[in-house]
Each structure stands twice: as structure tokens, then as C-alpha cells.
């Protein structure tokens, strides 16, 4: 009967975990838990996270591991659902006894996992979520962010736009939910500061099928620039429909870093040409480190890395540096080591700001040309980062 089966399984697992406790913990491999969406809408992002981390782990292990210990990754599917993410994260912390956790994509999962990390006295990091709140008003002493947040992206993009098209009229089209609205608001304030007038704004429901109903308003306001923060399938529809309606001529489309990515650029095709965004990474970055990274990534996965893959790849090297500096995997020591840590990534040097656990990094403005993200501008890390708004620690 299944109850007894459950009991046997549970009892067996409990006994097994009890054994691995303690003795093996400091000498065996360093375990890093990855809670990331492997099913559902965010699967493509989860795939990049996985590829980036796996490549980094392979390279670190080939180079002798972290402080002489091998790294092993333990994956769990979070289904892009915070309720599942927390359950799986707890499994990794409690049963797998991972030393560190990463992988969450949507900000709800990241925030919930941050709280769980606090309650389990473990550390976690995100390489994808870019909601400002994660390192501002909802910052956590146990959560780090190594990717660029929304404000860094919009500062970089707005600075470029002010140079490229001074005082151009901007129309805003965002997905109608909290994240979409705050991203639009962030860019709007940056753009207005640099003198770009606002032509109007509209918020379309998430997963909109047809954007044509908003085209009339856009045409009527005659903007030179369209800013959008839609993502995934929504971008495919928005941009291809704009193209079908012939609206892309004489219109510069700019957007959030997640708007056009390596996952959807193929489906967007021609309509993506000329799209510009502020982002922390492009495979086109012309440094030896990046070229090596892109080559290795391509060889392993038959696909180009994007910002998610690159940020996830870089994270493991930060963790390696921190553990080696701390001489331990203990939470408090590693936290101290991560604070203010500078390390090299394919994206350039990154530094984790001690005050809010947000990584500072050079920001790039990239524009799509022939299906590739060409770098057209670069903003220094300290210019893009913005003030430290975390008051908890």
C-alpha cells in the first residue's frame, strides 16, 4: 500500500541524509543547487542558465575545482512558480545540503527563495531576475545579484538614445503587469531626464495575441522611438506585427534586455533588425575571454550564449573566488568574501557592491544587425549603477 511505501522511501532518504551530514560535508564536492524553470513558459531561459552553469562547472573542475574540491550541480525544476521554487529550494538546502543556490528566473521566485535562504542560513544568487526590488527595497543579506538590474539597463540605453536621437519623441508599450509597468517607468524617467518627450504609453495584457489594436495610437502620436518591455512570445508577435503593418520604417525600436534575446530572435527574423537595448552582455564583446567563452559555449550546446547564459557562467567564478578567499563554505564567511568582490567575466570586470549585493558591471548598448547583437555603445559600471537603496544591511 502506498502509505507504507511513502514511509519506507521517506525513512530511507532520512537515514541517507543523516549519514552524509557532517563528516563528508567539508571534504566532498561543493554542491551548488540550481532551481530553475525547466518546464513552462520560461523554459528557454532556464536552458541558458543550465548551459552557462554547466560550462563553468566543467571548466572549474578541470582546473582543480574550488579550493581543491570539485563542484557538482544539482538541478530542480521550479516550473516558474514561486510555490514550487521554494519547495525545491528547501529540498536542495535540507536534503541535498547544497552550499549555494541559484537559478531562479521570475522575480517572485527569487524573492521567495531569498527569504528561504535567510531562514536556512544559506546564500543564494540570481543571474536572471532584473526587478529593481531584489536589491533595493526587498534586498536580503543572503541574496546576491550578478546580472544587471532594470535601472542599469535603462540608464545605459537612455544615455545612448540621448546621443543618437536627441530629443526624439518616445512612445511606450509595456506588458500590463507590475514588472512591465516598473520597467517602462524606469526608462521613461531616464529618458525624460535626458530631454526625450513622451508621445504616449499603453499597456497590453501579458500574452496578448494581437497588438494591432494599439498601432493606431502609436501612429497617431508619430513617435521616432518606440520603447517596449514585452518579452518572449509577446515580442515575436509585437515586432512581426509592426513589420507586417509597415510601421518599422523610420521608427527606432528600443526595449528591455529581455525583449529580444537569442531565444526569440530567430522567430522574429527581419523584424528584429535595428532593435537596440541596454544589456550586460553580447556575444560580440571583443575580448579574448569572451571569445573563448563563446567558442566553448557553442561547442557544448550548439547555440550562442545570451545574457542569461553569460551571467550564470560568471556567477560560479565569483563563488569560487569568494570561497577561496574565505577559506570555507560557511555562510557568514562567504557572504563577507562576496561583498565588494571583484572578478573577471566574459562581460568584463564585475564588482559586487557591499551595500546592496548588486553587481556593478560595464553596460553595453547593443543593436541587432543581421541577427546578431552588435555593440554600439558602452557605459562604465559606476555610471550605470545608480544609488544604493537597500536599507536592511
Amino acid at each position, binding site marked *: 500500500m502506498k502509505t507504507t511505501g511513502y514511509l519506507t522511501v521517506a525513512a530511507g*532518504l532520512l537515514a541517507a541524509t543523516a549519514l552524509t551530514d557532517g563528516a563528508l560535508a567539508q571534504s566532498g564536492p561543493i554542491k551548488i543547487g540550481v532551481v530553475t524553470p525547466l518546464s513552462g513558459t520560461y523554459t528557454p531561459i532556464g536552458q541558458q542558465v543550465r548551459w552557462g552553469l554547466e560550462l563553468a562547472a566543467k571548466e572549474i573542475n578541470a582546473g582543480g575545482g574550488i579550493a581543491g574540491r570539485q563542484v557538482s550541480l544539482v538541478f530542480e*525544476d521550479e516550473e516558474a512558480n514561486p510555490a514550487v521554487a521554494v519547495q525545491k529550494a528547501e*529540498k536542495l538546502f535540507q536534503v541535498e545540503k547544497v552550499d549555494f543556490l541559484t537559478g531562479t528566473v521570475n522575480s*517572485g521566485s527569487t*524573492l521567495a527563495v531569498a527569504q528561504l535562504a535567510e531562514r536556512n542560513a544559506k546564500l543564494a544568487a540570481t543571474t536572471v531576475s532584473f526587478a529593481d526590488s531584489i536589491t533595493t527595497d526587498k534586498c536580503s543579506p543572503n541574496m546576491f545579484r550578478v546580472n544587471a538590474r532594470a535601472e542599469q539597463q535603462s540608464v545605459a540605453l537612455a544615455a545612448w538614445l540621448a546621443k543618437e536621437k536627441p530629443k526624439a519623441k518616445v512612445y511606450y508599450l509595456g506588458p500590463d*503587469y507590475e514588472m512591465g509597468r516598473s520597467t517602462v517607468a524606469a526608462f521613461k524617467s531616464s529618458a525624460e531626464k535626458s530631454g526625450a518627450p513622451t508621445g504616449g504609453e499603453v499597456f497590453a495584457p501579458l500574452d496578448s495575441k494581437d497588438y494591432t489594436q494599439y498601432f493606431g495610437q502609436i501612429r497617431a502620436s508619430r513617435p521616432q522611438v518606440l520603447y517596449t518591455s514585452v518579452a518572449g512570445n509577446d515580442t515575436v508577435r509585437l515586432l512581426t506585427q509592426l513589420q507586417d503593418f509597415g510601421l518599422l520604417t523610420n521608427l527606432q525600436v528600443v526595449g528591455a534586455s529581455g525583449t529580444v534575446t537569442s531565444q526569440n530572435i530567430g522567430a522574429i527574423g527581419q523584424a528584429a533588425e535595428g532593435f537596440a537595448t541596454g544589456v550586460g552582455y553580447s556575444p560580440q564583446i571583443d575580448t579574448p575571454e569572451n571569445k573563448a567563452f563563446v567558442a566553448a559555449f557553442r561547442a557544448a550546446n550548439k547555440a550562442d550564449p545570451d545574457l542569461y547564459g553569460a551571467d550564470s557562467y560568471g556567477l560560479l567564478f565569483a563563488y569560487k573566488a569568494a570561497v577561496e578567499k574565505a577559506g570555507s563554505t560557511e555562510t557568514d564567511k562567504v557572504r563577507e568574501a562576496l561583498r565588494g568582490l571583484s572578478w573577471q567575466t566574459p562581460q568584463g570586470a564585475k564588482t559586487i557592491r557591499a551595500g546592496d549585493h548588486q553587481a556593478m558591471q560595464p553596460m553595453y548598448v547593443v543593436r541587432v544587425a543581421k541577427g546578431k547583437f552588435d555593440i554600439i555603445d558602452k557605459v562604465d559600471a559606476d555610471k550605470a549603477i545608480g544609488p544604493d537603496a537597500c536599507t536592511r544591511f
Partner: protein
Amino acid sequence: MRDRLTLSMRASHLLALVLVTAALALAAIGAASGDTFYLRLGTEALIFAGLALSVDLLLGYSGALSLGQALYFGIGAYVSALTLLKVPSFWLAMAAAGGATLIASIVGGLIANRVRGVYFALITFGLAQVVAKVVYNTRELGASDGMIGIPVIEIGFGPVSVSAGNPVGFFLVVLAIIMGLYGITAYLLDTPFGRVLTALKANEKRVPFLGYSVWRARMFSYVLAGLIAGLSGALYPMLRGFVSPELMFFVTSGNAVISVILGGVGTLIGAIYGSVLLVLLKSIIGSWTEHHLIVIGLIFMVCVMFLPKGLVGFIRPRIEQRLLAGAQKPAAPSFAPARLEAGSAKP
């Protein structure tokens, strides 16, 4: 006892007893080995079992399939979370969540109970969808991110108190509450009122001509189901410390329906077994493939087609036979007066 429905309910109670025994054993093993994860996972399974229980009350007894029961689960969870953020009191949070879901399910019932069958399913689906979307867009409720920072509370029972952060303690509290909800539901279903619900499922058109208001009976069971879902949902933020709009989404409602089908429609205890089973299946399948939907979808279809009464429906008749055999050996006690029993013997 020869009344079939009462007999079935007794068989369910036996299975409930088995479940509680197993749960207590798990708690003991967990406490002895200092486990956290499995106890908390079990706690979560029980909380979602409460939701499944409410789906079974509707589907298994009055025959109404709700595809949006997570709505009340979510309302319970959010109200409990909001209360706990202000006042960290278990009883206050439960009362507030109960009150809110009571009102919400009365409103929802007034809308949904105007229709039957598949239309009921579509309306409950749409209702949950719309409310979830509103929550998803309401900044005051944390919008798409949900709300974190719900404190770990102390649950006071007179002189003793249990921390929601204590895996064994909170597991036992949740076990008691969910089994309490099961007990109340099972009791009500074996009263004359509950039999009206069974009658509704058997032949709804006949019921009004016996003098019962169909609307009132459906409404009562809908509100009761909403309340059960809401009280279960209220426990969620105490366990996990956060709420998110996904708790109201179709995934949550759908999982509850899957649990009920796996465990057995109309068996009540099956909902709880089904929920535990689903959590177990997901964690086992999830560790070897991310394509768990294929496996769960297939198992679900097989259950709908070949095991319409689920696993408990498969086991329970065997228990009923045992009970019947046991009951017939002594001098056949029956609910009807003995004189009439004798009189009704074959002429």
C-alpha cells in the same frame, strides 16, 4: 450497519486512520532524525489536500466540477498573509481567512450556481482566472511578485504553543486541522443534509419534488467547499512565509482536480491520499525528467478512463465487504426499529 453510504464512509474513516497513523510515524521518524524537508513537504501536501478535499466535496458529492477552486485557496492565503503581517496571531489569521472566503464563496456561489455541469466548470475557471489577474496587477498585494516576509508565528493552544517554524510541531497542527476538516465534511455528508447532496448527484431533477431546494443545497456545499479551501490556504503562508498569485492560477486548481481523480472521486479521503500521491509522484518523476507533465497526464487519463473511482475507490469496496461481514455476524443492528425489521421479512 447496512446503509451503503454510511458503510462507505466508515471505510473511508478506516483509510483516514491508516493515513493518520502513517503521518504520525513519519512525524516520529522525522523528529528522531532531525529532518526538516520531508516533514515540511508533507505539511505542504496536507495543505493542498485541503484544497483537493473541497474539490471532492463539490465533484464527488453534488457532482459539480470546479476548475477554479484555487480562487478560495488563494483568497485564504492572501488574507492570512495580510493579517499575519499586521498581527502575528494564528487564530486571528484563520478567522480572517475564514471570514473572507465565506463572503467570497457566497458571491462566487451566487454566480456559479446559476448554471450546471460543464458551464459550472467554465464559470468557476473564468472566475478564478479573472480574480487571479486582478491580484497579479495589484501593487498593494505585491502584484506578480507576491508578498514575502510573513513572520514565523507561534501557535497558541491555551498553555502550550507550537512554532510554525518547528517542522514536527507544525506538521501535527496542519494534520490536525486538515483531518478536522475531513471529519467535519465526512460528518456532514452522512447527515440528512449530506444525503440531499448525494441525491443531487444521483438525480437532480427529482430532488425539488421531494421538497428540497436544489439551489440551497448546492449553495451550502459550494460555500462549505470555499471555506475548506480558504482555511487550507490560510495555512500556506504560515508554512512558506510568502504568497504569490500562482496560488490562484489554474495550475493550482488543476493539481487539486488531478489529486481528486488519482485518489478517488466521491471518497473524500481519496482527495487527501491523491494529494500526497501527487506530491510524491512529482518529486520522484521530477528527479529523473523535467517532462513530468507527460507522465502525470498519462496517469491522469488512465485514472479517468479505467479507474473512475481512483485508488481509494479500488481499495474501499474490499474494506466495505470486510465491514459488512463483520457487522452481519452479531445480531444485525440496523437503524430501523427491530419490529419493522421483522415485519419486512419476505412474505
